[in-house]
């Protein structure tokens, strides 16, 4: 393998990994945008989404098959279910705390994370669940570069979801309300915007995107378990910080950048794959030290 092939391969792999990070990072950043909460339960919504997608697929695979069509339908079901779960979590756990100090609500988020994780642990007995699909291992071999069909569909799906989100936020009434709420909640209330509903919609979309990522990860990697959301939750958080937390475009960019950095980072001489996570979280620290607002974030006086 020449360095050129190897470079392209890292690029492709980085994009795939980055798509997952970006989808999950979007939920972090949207929620932070509207209620200034670092929703640490977000990674667990990704895990819940993977299980919901698994359930959805076993429902529909009978008549749609377990190929991409079945997986897409399962993914939509999972997005719907986990979106609703996200709204319920917001109503039950976060809404009553909105007036409380920022730290209290952060602790609530950690508690929600533990509840979801342990519920999944109890339900699955801590075992890995095989996510069976009919997806083959096929792909294109371009020289030494290997591009699987699954990778292409995955990146394309992520791109479609992100473009849809961008259009929603920039072109629709609710999107405009969402942006307004993130700037000034009180003023929005005075202007007659139903802030509570906007927050609910934000949670619905953010959780739905996490579920989409979870289902795709399950289908792509082939197994799911209760702890799968932990690491990706932290990494998506890192991606959101790199892009500038609160910024939607920033989260997409941050996710892709982190995916690429991880992919290339493991190929720096003397840095083996064992240093992958050290590398990732060092970047988080560096960004926090030197550019706490991230690449596209707006500077704010008060931060959590």
């Amino acid at each position: 393998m020449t360095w050129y092939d190897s470079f392209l391969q890292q690029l492709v792999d980085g994009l795939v990994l980055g798509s997952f990070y970006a989808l999950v990072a979007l939920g972090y950043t949207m929620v932070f945008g509207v209620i200034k909460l670092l929703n640490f339960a977000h990674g667990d919504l990704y895990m819940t989404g993977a299980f919901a997608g698994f359930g959805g697929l076993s429902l529909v695979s009978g008549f749609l098959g377990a190929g991409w069509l079945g997986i897409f339908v399962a993914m939509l079901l999972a997005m719907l279910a986990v979106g609703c779960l996200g709204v319920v979590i917001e109503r039950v756990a976060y809404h009553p705390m909105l007036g409380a100090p920022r730290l209290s609500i952060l602790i609530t988020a950690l508690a929600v994370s533990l509840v979801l994780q342990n519920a999944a642990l109890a339900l699955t007995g801590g075992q890995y669940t095989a996510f069976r699909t009919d997806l083959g291992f096929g792909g294109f071999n371009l020289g030494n570069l290997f591009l699987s069909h699954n990778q292409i569909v995955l990146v394309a799906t992520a791109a479609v979801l992100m473009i849809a989100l961008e259009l929603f936020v920039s072109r629709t009434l609710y999107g405009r309300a969402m942006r307004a709420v993130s700037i000034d909640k009180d003023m929005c209330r005075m202007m007659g915007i139903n802030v509570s509903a906007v927050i609910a919609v934000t949670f619905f979309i953010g959780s739905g995107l996490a579920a989409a990522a979870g289902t795709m990860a399950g289908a792509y990697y082939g197994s799911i378990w209760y702890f799968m959301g932990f690491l990706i939750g932290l990494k998506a958080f890192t991606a959101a910080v790199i892009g500038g937390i609160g910024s939607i475009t920033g989260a997409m960019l941050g996710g892709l950048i982190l995916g690429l950095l991880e992919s290339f980072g493991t190929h720096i001489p003397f840095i083996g794959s064992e240093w992958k996570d050290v590398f990732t979280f060092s970047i988080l620290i560096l960004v926090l030290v030197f550019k706490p607002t991230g690449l596209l974030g707006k500077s704010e006086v008060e931060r959590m």
Partner: protein
Amino acid sequence: MGKFLKLIASAAVVNLAAGSLAMAQDGPITIGVQVPTTGSEATYGKDMYNAMMLAADEINADGGLLNGRQIELVTGDTACDPQQSVNAASRLASQEVVGVVGGYCSGATQPTLKTYGDANIPFVIVAANSTQLIPANPGNAVMINSTGDDQAKTALEFFEGKDIEKLAIVNQGDAYSQDLANLTRDAWTGAGHTVSAFEYVNKGEQDFSALVNKIRGSGAEAVFWTAYYADGGLLIRQLRQRGFQGTIAVGDGSNSPELFNIAGQAAEGVFAFSNPTADFLPAAKQFTSDYESRFGNAPGPYAPLAYDGMQLMAWAIDKAGSTDGDAIIKALNSADGQEWLAGPISFTPQHTLARSNFVVLEGQGGKWTRYEE
């Protein structure tokens, strides 16, 4: 301290000792079972627990131990986690268990050796087999599974038999898989071959694309995964997905049927080094049918060893003629090659099994079959 206080103190100690002695003489004999019943290795843990329960129930039905005393099992869940395992071990020790049988993950077993050593509790380690356990053993534990040394030797012979020159070795950084990886690397380079990649992955990581590229880029003809099935299944899948055509072999932590669930089609033709599992043991026929009729599924890879461990502990308690820790430890070490399900057991001066028990398996049609060269 005044003489009076000393007197009271020693009287209290005598009282306490007498009390526990009286209790210990007629109550059931409590044996601790240290296995992961939750977490990523729960499949193995529950399977081992079932096998031990089967052994204990058989012994109890035959009239128990030491003139009719019944065996009672208490579980300590290690979750394959060093911190949780120390808590579990302390809890077992505080419940005054007569002995402990179990130990699956070496990383989680290692710190418990000290806990049991301090409490002078005899410990039969049934599955964990990292060589790092040997120096950590204060003398109260015996290992009835062959160690990583034996497995590295089996791996060397296997890969040489496949005419492989460049080998990639991947582990997960825990005591067991790192130990096996190091031993194999030393054996492989020692025999004049090349280790083209020596890598480590984080537990719970799902994306191995960078690793797979590195392995392919290194020109490795074979990959040896030394860690557990859950992540191993993912790695095998991604290796095959990305067009790796070479030989793949996995260590004894991955020889679970679950590997086929996770890796699917990619697990076909994968080799595994295995401790003797029930399917390949002529002596385990009765055990297998008993196990199946009771639990509704076939015994897993460590079930025979777990069964043997419990039987060995019971044998040692009977031989010692008491529940005294020292006497049982002495009895355990005097095991002199009697036949158990998994073959004869006797121990080296380092308290390890005195023979190698590894076999090579191949994945075929969604299950493991014995591989004959």
